[in-house]
């Protein structure tokens, strides 16, 4: 038995160590037989250790070689993966230009479903279109038209992205964006963001117009904007082979109709949008419009500017004598405002009479 009875104290080198322990005393011996026997045992063990050492070294070298090979393969694979990653990043960057950024991001995070599924959601839809684009384009060299149009869309797109819009599509010179999907801050906040975005676009366009005019674009682009808030079908439309993430429905068509009825350089919105932004903008009540697919008459409002401290705002007056006035001049058209001013002036004169 070569092992200690306690397994945990077993020593793989017990035989060699035993010989080493015996050595010092035995080597002092003058007994030739004893010395010879020890030398033989020592030689036998030494020979085994040398052979073991040879085998172990050989095995160790083989393992090392395999490790080196694995390491080389790993480096090669890492290089290939890095290269593939760069290619995918470039591809992703190119694809991102064809997709709404929110959808692109959701797709890459694995959060976007590519099934043909849609849902009804209350969205605020924006349409813009360049006035007389065909005539304008005919008066320009194609290169200049491309340059101005690209600049126009780039600037408008950047503003839309800054406000968190989902850019649905460009249709020739028209642009369609919406708020409320895939991310929403609530119907009211979505509507307000859309109107703020539209105002920023018009402001930016005015400075572009000045610059374009100064460099030879005689009649720079002018646009009309329509905004509507209502229930739309939003999601993936199309086939298993080709999908479009878009919105459809009567309320979408209404936004386009509002755009075509808007003043040049103006924003026409439905009552459904107006109620969410009446404290933000000065708006003029316009005529109601009827549309196929929309059961109601749609009251429209044209934005004339942002509401500032000096803008006329809602006027409230309550007196214990039983007088109560609640008036928002912004929702009245010019004729009604004028008639009301005359009546109030007459009333003021009467009140001042003794």
């Amino acid at each position, binding site marked *: *038995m*070569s*092992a*200690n009875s306690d*397994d*945990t*104290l*077993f*020593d*793989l080198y017990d035989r060699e160590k035993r010989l080493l322990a015996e050595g010092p005393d035995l080597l002092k011996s003058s007994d030739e037989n004893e010395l010879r026997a020890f030398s033989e045992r020592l030689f036998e063990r030494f020979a*085994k250790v040398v*052979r*073991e050492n040879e*085998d*172990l070294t*050989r*095995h*160790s070298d*083989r*393992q090392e070689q*395999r490790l080196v090979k694995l390491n080389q393969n790993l480096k090669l694979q890492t290089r290939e993966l890095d290269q593939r990653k760069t290619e995918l990043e470039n591809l992703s960057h190119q694809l991102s230009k064809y997709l709404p950024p929110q959808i692109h991001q959701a797709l890459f995070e694995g959060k976007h479903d590519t099934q043909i599924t849609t849902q009804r959601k209350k969205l605020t839809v924006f349409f813009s279109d360049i006035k007389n684009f065909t005539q304008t384009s005919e008066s320009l060299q194609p290169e200049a038209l491309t340059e101005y149009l690209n600049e126009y869309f780039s600037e408008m797109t950047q503003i839309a992205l800054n406000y968190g819009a989902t850019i649905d599509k460009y249709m020739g010179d028209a642009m369609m964006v919406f708020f409320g999907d895939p991310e929403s801050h609530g119907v009211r906040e979505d509507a307000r963001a859309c109107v703020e975005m539209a105002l920023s676009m018009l402001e930016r366009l005015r400075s572009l117009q000045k610059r374009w005019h100064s460099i030879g674009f005689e009649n720079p682009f002018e646009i009309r904007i329509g905004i509507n808030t209502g229930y739309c079908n939003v999601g993936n439309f199309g086939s298993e082979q080709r999908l479009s993430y878009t919105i459809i429905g009567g309320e979408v068509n209404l936004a386009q109709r509002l755009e075509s009825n808007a003043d040049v350089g103006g924003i026409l919105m439905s009552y459904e949008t107006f109620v969410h932004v009446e404290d933000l903008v000065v708006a003029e009540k316009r005529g109601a419009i009827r549309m196929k697919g929309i059961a109601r008459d749609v009251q429209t409002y044209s934005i004339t500017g942002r509401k500032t401290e000096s803008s006329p705002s809602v006027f409230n007056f309550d007196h214990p004598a039983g007088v109560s006035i609640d008036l928002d001049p912004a929702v009245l058209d010019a004729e009604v405002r004028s008639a009301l001013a005359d009546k109030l002036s007459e009333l003021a004169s009467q009140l001042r009479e003794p």
Partner: protein
Amino acid sequence: MSELHIAATERTPEILLSANNGTFSMKGESFPEDVSAFYGQVIVAVDQLALNLTKPLTVDVAMIYINSSSIKAMFRIFEGLEAVRKNGQAVSITWHHQEDDDIMQELGEDFKDRFPDLPIEVNAA
């Protein structure tokens, strides 16, 4: 009589030794934290076989990975098997290795050279 049943772990092989059946096998990976503690019991059990085995012994070794310390322990185990053979019992050893594992194949060949008196067959699984 020697009987040993040690289940495999992530770092140690399965060890099955039965003097009654005349079988001994080691299968799996071998890089124990404490080689002496793990293989000490196996070396002791194999050494006992040399004293009390009453039938031929069939040995199967099928290691996937084995570190250098474990090989040192394996040498001791094979020395024990040599002693079994010297004491008069037939011993037949099959060293199994995976088809594409040339390292384990060559290690089997090394053991064959190192223990010429033991009948060792190196087989691809």
